[in-house]
Structures are given as structure tokens and as C-alpha cells.
């Protein structure tokens, strides 16, 4: 019970239930009061009017006339709603439907509520008005107080039924809502527990109903995606460091060890040392790339975003690479449709584009072609694209192409450490966009799409 009360839906439902009950009771009390006032005072008025009317008859027609009037009145009455009694000065009944002057009535004029025995039938709870007429005659005019009793009883029943109904529905509603909520919360809890236990691929159930729970679930799922990517990034990096750094370090070690063991001629020694320095440089370049990736993934560089014309950045990078392409005999062209403003880091964008061009230059055949273009799309987003007619990336490799240290079969024998596309991808994501690897039939069309939101959010 305690646990039930601590559950927030139950607390809310009970709160609303109490509010409903309070409203109902307040309504009933007010109604009861109004009813009593109007019926009770209305009754007295009628009694007074009745008594006045009979007194008038008495004054006009004398005791006999009144007696006849009363008799005729009572004859018309079916149930004992009305009580009438005329007595002489000694309280001996002359006319009416009471056998005797009721003893319970105190002296003095006014209204009194008493039980009286009517001539025909049951004792009736009656409101009586006592009047003394000229000549010592006494007149009682009464009305059955129980006349509205069935109605009042019905009202009380109705009120009780309403309260009971409200209570039952309220409690049942609370329990149902709680059960419903618990089921959803429980679903989330089991998922989250599973994730905490290490199953990072689990996601919260989210239907398309668009209610608050689904919205929340989807938001949390987005967060989980990001966390999973980060964690995978970390474990990838550790794996890669273990794997890809070990290779050049092992080479370096054996090279140096061999030198100390064989002690060759100076010329040979220096050649080996130079090769060792190259090994170290390779390790350092991997480190630099990994550090840059880590820096990109934290999103810290976003603080340095400014409004950049992507077309201009691209034009400069293209100009930078033009001689290299020319030397290789590659047709290198650039096309941009006017300025393409985005919020971003010009140097990072330049580096990302330079990585893409580097990749293309490495893999296009002699006399190949590379086309760089910057387009502003209809929705305001900016696409920076590098298309070549090289071997491209196999469809099966595309999802893995941006993973750290991944190298497709085609690039196995070219220089590089397999971090270029990872950096492009990280730069695109840092700018709120994405890197898409499309087919160029033949070749690769690598496209960085930077959303318009990146351009507006920073202003």
C-alpha cells in the first residue's frame, strides 16, 4: 500500500478523486440547504395562507360553515397530506381528520412539528399551525412533513451512488494508469539495466504514436547511439593502437636490435637509422591523426566556428592540389555555384577536403579525372563533393570505410594509415553533417553534406 501511494500516477489520481468528491459534497450540501430553506419556509407560508383562508370562512359563515368547508375539503383529499382539525373551546373535535387534539402541542400560536394519528391510517409526522378563532374555537392546520421524504431519500441514494461511482472509477483509473505506466517504465528499466550490464546494442522500445514516452525513448536512443559510437571509438582506438602501432614499433625495434647485434659498416648503419626515423615518423603521424580525431569527437572545436564560405575554402584547397594533380597527369576540375556559407572551422573543412582529394589522387589511374564541386542544395544545406574515376569502394566496404584504421583491399598497397576518411567523417559530424560515399560508375563520389542548421545555429 505504501509503495502504491508513493507511485506518482496513483498520487495524482487520488488527488483528483478527492477533488471530485469534495466538489460533489459541496454541491450536495448547497443543494440540501437550498431545498430545506425553500421547502420548509414554503410550507409555513402555505400553512399560514390556509389558516387565514379558513379563518375567513369562519368569519363569513360561522362555525357551521367552516365545519362544512373542512369536511368538503377533506373529502377531496386522497392521501393524508393535509391535516385539519376544528375544536371548540374545550378542545372537543368538531370537524377534521384527527380523533382528538394532539396532546403534544404546546400552548400558544405558531408552528410545531409533531407526530399525529390521522383518523384514517398511519401516524404522520406533521407540521401543525395552531390558531385560535373568535369564540374560543381552536383550529389546527397541518401538512405532512413526510410528503417529500421519498424524494429526499432518492436524492440521498443518488448522492451515495455518485460518490461510490466516482470513488470506484477513480481508484480503478489510478491502478490502471499506474499499471500502464509501470509497464512502460519497466520496459525502459530492463533495457537500461541490460545496457548497463554491457549490452550496448539494446534500444528503448519506441512506437510511432508520438506520445511523450516515445519522444523520450527516441531522444534516449539517440543518446545511446552517440554513447555507443564513442565507446566503440575508444575500444577501436585501443585495438588499433595495439595493432597498428605495434607493427611499426616492432619493425623499429628489430631494426635497432639488428644494428646493435651486427654492427655493420657506417654507411649501412646510417641507412638503417634513417629507416628507423621514418618508422618513428610513421608512428607519430598515426598519433597525430588519432589525437585530432579524439579532439574532433569531443566537439570542443565547435566553439571556434565562424561563418565560412565553403566554396572559397574548397577553391583554395583545389588550387593547393592543382600542381600535384597536374604532375600526375590527372584532369582536375573545380566547380561551385556561388558562395556557400556554412558555420564551421575553415581549417578543418580544408583538411577534410584535402583528405578526400589525397585519397582520390592516390587511387585514380594515370590520366584519370577528379572533379571537386560545391553545391548549395534547395534546403540550404551545402554539399562538398569529390568525385573520381578510380576503383571506388566496394559496396560491402562502404559502411566500414570511415572506421579507424580500415583499409579497403584496393588501397592495401598505397601509403597511408587508414585514418583519412575517419577524419573526414568526424569533421562532417562535428559540423552537424554527414559523409556519404556514393558510386560514380566507376569510381567514388565522396560527399560531405553540411546542414543549413549549422549555419544558422551559431548566429
Amino acid at each position, binding site marked *: 500500500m505504501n509503495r502504491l501511494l508513493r507511485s506518482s500516477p496513483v498520487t495524482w489520481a487520488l488527488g483528483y478523486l478527492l477533488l471530485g468528491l469534495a466538489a460533489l459534497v459541496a454541491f450536495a450540501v448547497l443543494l440540501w440547504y437550498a431545498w430545506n430553506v425553500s421547502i420548509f419556509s414554503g410550507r409555513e407560508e402555505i400553512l399560514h395562507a390556509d389558516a387565514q383562508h379558513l379563518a375567513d370562512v369562519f368569519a363569513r359563515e360561522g362555525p357551521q360553515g367552516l365545519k362544512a368547508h373542512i369536511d368538503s375539503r377533506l373529502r377531496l383529499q386522497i392521501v393524508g397530506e393535509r391535516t385539519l382539525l376544528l375544536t371548540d373551546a374545550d378542545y372537543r373535535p368538531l370537524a377534521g381528520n384527527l380523533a382528538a387534539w394532539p396532546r403534544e402541542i404546546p400552548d400558544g400560536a405558531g408552528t410545531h412539528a409533531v407526530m399525529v394519528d390521522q383518523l384514517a391510517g398511519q401516524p404522520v409526522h406533521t407540521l401543525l399551525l395552531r390558531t385560535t378563532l373568535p369564540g374560543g374555537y381552536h383550529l389546527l392546520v397541518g401538512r405532512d412533513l413526510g410528503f417529500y421524504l421519498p424524494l429526499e431519500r432518492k436524492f440521498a441514494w443518488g448522492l451515495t451512488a455518485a460518490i461510490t461511482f466516482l470513488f470506484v472509477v477513480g481508484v480503478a483509473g489510478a491502478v490502471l494508469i499506474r499499471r500502464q505506466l509501470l509497464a512502460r517504465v519497466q520496459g525502459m528499466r530492463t533495457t537500461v539495466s541490460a545496457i548497463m550490464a554491457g549490452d550496448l546494442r539494446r534500444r528503448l522500445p519506441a512506437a510511432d504514436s508520438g506520445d511523450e514516452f516515445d519522444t523520450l525513448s527516441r531522444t534516449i536512443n539517440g543518446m545511446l547511439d552517440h554513447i555507443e559510437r564513442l565507446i566503440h571509438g575508444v575500444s577501436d582506438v585501443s585495438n588499433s593502437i595495439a595493432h597498428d602501432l605495434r607493427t611499426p614499433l616492432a619493425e623499429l625495434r628489430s631494426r635497432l636490435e639488428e644494428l646493435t647485434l651486427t654492427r655493420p659498416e657506417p654507411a649501412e648503419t646510417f641507412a638503417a637509422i634513417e629507416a628507423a626515423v621514418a618508422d618513428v615518423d610513421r608512428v607519430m603521424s598515426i598519433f597525430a591523426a588519432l589525437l585530432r580525431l579524439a579532439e574532433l569527437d569531443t566537439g570542443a572545436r565547435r566553439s571556434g566556428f565562424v561563418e565560412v564560405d565553403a566554396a572559397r575554402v574548397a577553391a583554395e584547397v583545389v588550387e593547393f*592540389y592543382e600542381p600535384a594533380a597536374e604532375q600526375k597527369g590527372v584532369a582536375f576540375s573545380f566547380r561551385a555555384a556561388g558562395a556557400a556559407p556554412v558555420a564551421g572551422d575553415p581549417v578543418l573543412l580544408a583538411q577534410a577536403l*584535402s583528405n578526400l582529394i589525397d585519397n582520390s589522387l592516390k587511387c585514380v589511374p594515370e590520366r584519370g579525372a577528379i572533379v571537386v564541386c560545391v553545391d548549395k542544395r534547395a534546403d540550404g544545406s551545402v554539399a562538398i563533393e569529390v568525385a573520381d574515376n578510380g576503383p571506388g569502394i566496394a559496396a560491402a566496404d562502404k559502411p566500414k570505410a570511415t572506421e579507424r584504421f580500415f583499409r579497403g583491399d584496393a588501397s592495401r598497397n598505397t601509403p597511408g594509415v587508414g585514418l583519412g576518411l575517419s577524419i573526414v567523417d568526424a569533421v562532417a559530424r562535428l559540423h552537424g553533417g554527414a559523409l556519404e560515399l556514393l558510386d560514380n560508375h566507376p569510381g567514388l563520389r565522396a560527399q560531405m553534406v553540411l546542414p543549413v542548421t549549422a549555419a544558422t545555429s551559431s548566429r
Partner: protein
Amino acid sequence: MKILIVEDNERVAQFVTKGLREAGHTVEHAANGRDGLFLAASEPHDVIVMDRMLPGNVDGLGIIEALRQAGNRTPILILSALDAVDERIKGLRSGGDDYLTKPFAFGELLARVDALGRRSSGAEAGHTLQVGDLRMDLLSRRVTRGSRAITLQPREFKLLEYLMRHADQVVTRTMLLEAVWEYNFDPQTNVVDVHISKLRQKIEHESEAPLVRTVRNAGYMMTEHE
């Protein structure tokens, strides 16, 4: 040049000191921040090489700020293992003139120290640069070799200007990337080399003496001397 090195790692300090001495410089070494500040403040140097992480949790940047506040204008090269862009910016804002991340190639360090030393000596005179018979007019942006006029693209002009300003000094590919293209990343292909060879074709015709030399394991040097 007289150079002060503030560096606590003995091996690095020894390596740098030896290399700079061999290059003909006078070198002083301080192994901690206090000594470094004292030496820097007590006698004039042409260049200071300052490590960032010094013993006792002293940040070299603090020393640089102290020197700058005391009115010391000696060019300072910051050495640091901290590679993030923010760290570089912090280093340059604190009053450093150049930033080199560890580990580094000695050629890179030497080239940058030379460049800083040259900057402080204010060797620039007027609005023309000259190396041998190659002349560059910075105002009219005209380049001539002897009587021959050379047409250069804007970026080629900037590249040649940088080489000429640092004539008789080694400039590394990284320095060129930073100064001419303002890129602080290393492209994987030898793009800088291609730019240099294109420039060479324009300024060194077959009959003319070579001016841009390739310095093995370091970079390039523009000089009229053999």
C-alpha cells in the same frame, strides 16, 4: 645567435643544445622555470626556447607572461607535448611567437629558431627583396630575374616571398604550409614539393643558377651561394 633553452628533460635539452651549437649558435640551458626566468631576465638573448611543462607544476606560459610584462621582447619558441589547437592558441596568446609540438625533428626546431632570430634582427629593408639576381618588388608585386620578368600566381608570389624573406635559412614544409596556406595539417601527398618544383621552373631557367635548394630531411633553403 645567443639562444636560451628552458627544458627539464635532460636528454631533449642535450640533443637540442648540441644541435644548435653545431649550427653555430651560443646556447644556455636552464633546467627549471626559476633559473629560466632568471637567465632570461638578466641577460639579452636572440631567441628563447621554452618548454611548457616544467618541474614543480610550472607552466612555461606563466614564465612567458612574466617576461612580457617585464617588457622583454625576445622571440620565444614554445615546445610542448600539448597538441590541441586550443593549446596552441593559448601559447601564442600568452606571448609566445611560435609553437612546436613534441616530438619534433631537429631540422624543424632549427629552422624555426633561425626564422625567429631573423625576425627579431629586423633584416627587412625597404620594399624590395633580393636573392642573387632575383628581385621582388613588394609594392608593385613584380618579380624579375636579371632582366627577365617572371609572372607568378598570387600563391606562388606568397611562397616565393616567404622563401626570400628567409633567404639562407632552412624552411620546413610545415612552416611553408602554415605561413603560405595557413594549413596546420600535413597533407599525405607531397603537395608542397610539387609547388616548390613548379616555382623552380619559373624562377630557375636552365641557363640560370639554382636558388632554391632541397635540404635533406628538413626542407628548403633559398640561397645564392653554392
